[in-house]
């Protein structure tokens, strides 16, 4: 690669980053509006027309607050931890294909790359809880570590069915293989991945790490100002990532009749994001032991059986 190619690669990365940050800001606004709609209230409506400038106002508020490190915290780790969460989530988007010629990188290990980054995300939350050096954040951090380890396994196993069907780890190849969306061939894998995805992003009904009423908001209790904004950003980017991944892996990505592929991609992703917000209003939070039982005693065996059946059938249907 020469200099111009490096420059092109870096500038396209920068553009994608700006786009993702913009989408995350819109998602925060969208979530508050949808929650308001479903709960029969108005939602943000002061800053700008229809409250559209609310995310900017929130961001400025967080940015201009005092940058504060508690005296009892482990200073360096306390500062690094919040950066890890949005960083790993943003990096995953590098391998996601939006349409048949819109992607930044086509790795032949793309899916493993995403799983690896998602397994690194747990450090951000764990270390944030630990470095705060106070009891509720520590509990929140430990819970989140246990939760993310438990749900990563079935998540990875649920994806194996998709990999068997498409014969590749590359997301571009996986979407290209979906003349028929994999949700029809892999309904159990889809459900397992959806549930694990919600658990990985710490959203309701799996938001135990930041249970407000028992942990005083968990791992981010001691965080304020821009460091808190990083955690917040990481959560929304994570939701977007899971929605995009389900679109790419199970709903056929850019495939669809009549309108261009990019719009199909956006439509499917937005529907999934709406589903996440809807779940948040409708479901109560699980208890901790229910969460662990659900992960280890239900999702993991289901994912294993799904993998076994898919491999067995695939052996007869596919040659070689």
């Amino acid at each position, binding site marked *: 690669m020469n200099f111009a190619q490096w420059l092109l690669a870096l500038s396209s990365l920068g553009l994608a980053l700006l786009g993702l940050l913009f989408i995350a800001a819109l998602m925060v606004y969208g979530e508050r509006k949808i929650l308001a709609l479903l709960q029969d209230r108005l939602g943000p409506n002061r800053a700008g027309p229809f409250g559209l400038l609310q995310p900017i106002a929130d961001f400025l508020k967080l940015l201009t607050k005092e940058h504060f490190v508690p005296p009892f915290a*482990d200073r360096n780790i306390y500062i690094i931890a919040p950066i890890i969460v949005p960083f790993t989530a943003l990096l995953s988007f590098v391998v996601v294909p939006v349409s048949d010629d819109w992607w930044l990188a086509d790795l032949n*290990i793309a899916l*493993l790359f995403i799983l690896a980054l998602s*397994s690194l995300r*747990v*450090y951000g939350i764990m270390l944030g809880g630990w470095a705060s050096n106070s009891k509720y954040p520590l509990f929140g951090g430990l819970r989140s570590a246990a939760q993310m380890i438990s749900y990563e396994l079935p998540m990875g196993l649920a994806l194996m069915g998709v990999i068997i069907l498409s014969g590749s780890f590359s997301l571009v190849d996986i979407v290209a293989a979906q003349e028929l969306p994999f949700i029809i061939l892999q309904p159990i894998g889809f459900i397992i991945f959806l549930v694990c995805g919600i658990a990985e992003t710490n959203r309701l009904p799996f938001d135990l790490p930041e249970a407000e009423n028992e942990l005083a908001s968990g791992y981010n209790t001691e965080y304020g100002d821009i460091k808190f904004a990083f955690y917040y950003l990481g959560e929304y980017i994570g939701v977007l990532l899971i929605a995009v991944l389900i679109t790419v892996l199970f709903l056929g990505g850019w495939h669809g009749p009549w309108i261009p592929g990019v719009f199909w991609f956006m439509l499917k992703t937005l529907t999934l994001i709406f589903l996440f917000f809807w779940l948040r209003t409708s479901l109560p939070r699980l208890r901790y032991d229910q969460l662990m039982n659900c992960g280890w005693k239900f999702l993991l065996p289901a994912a294993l059986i799904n993998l076994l059946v898919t491999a067995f059938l695939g052996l007869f249907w596919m040659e070689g």
Partner: protein
Amino acid sequence: MYEVIFYLTAAIAVLAAGAILKVSHPVHAALYLVISLLALALIFFLLGAPLLAALQVMIYAGAIMVLFLFLIMVMNLRSERNQSLSLPSGWKGPAILALILWLELMLLLNRYPAEETNEMTAIEPKAVGHALFGPYLVLVEAAAVLLLAALVAALYLSRKGRS
């Protein structure tokens, strides 16, 4: 450019590994180990083994080190300043053995000089799979049986109501 990335990554890996010995806090040491493992993964990737790189991050950095950190947090380990840098009494024997191994390695490397090649072949995940479940099938199965035995033993040792 790739050489620059390689040497930078290698330096990070070595420095982070050295820092593990230097720092006194268990959590900091664990984090330096994570950084060293991530740097190693990048080196694997640069040398044309993307699958190995991904597995390195997923299994070592993403699973094993998370469990280490989890244990450190649960057991609430704090810094132990006095013991970190003093050598234990019986260091001479292992040091001499390690020195002999290092000399042997140097001799071998001198006898078989590394071939200068500029082209690099990236090994596809499929090729790794074919190798593992082709010529090395028995070894894979043996490793699987070993891990299963370890799992059963761990379950046996940690069962409730043991007298």
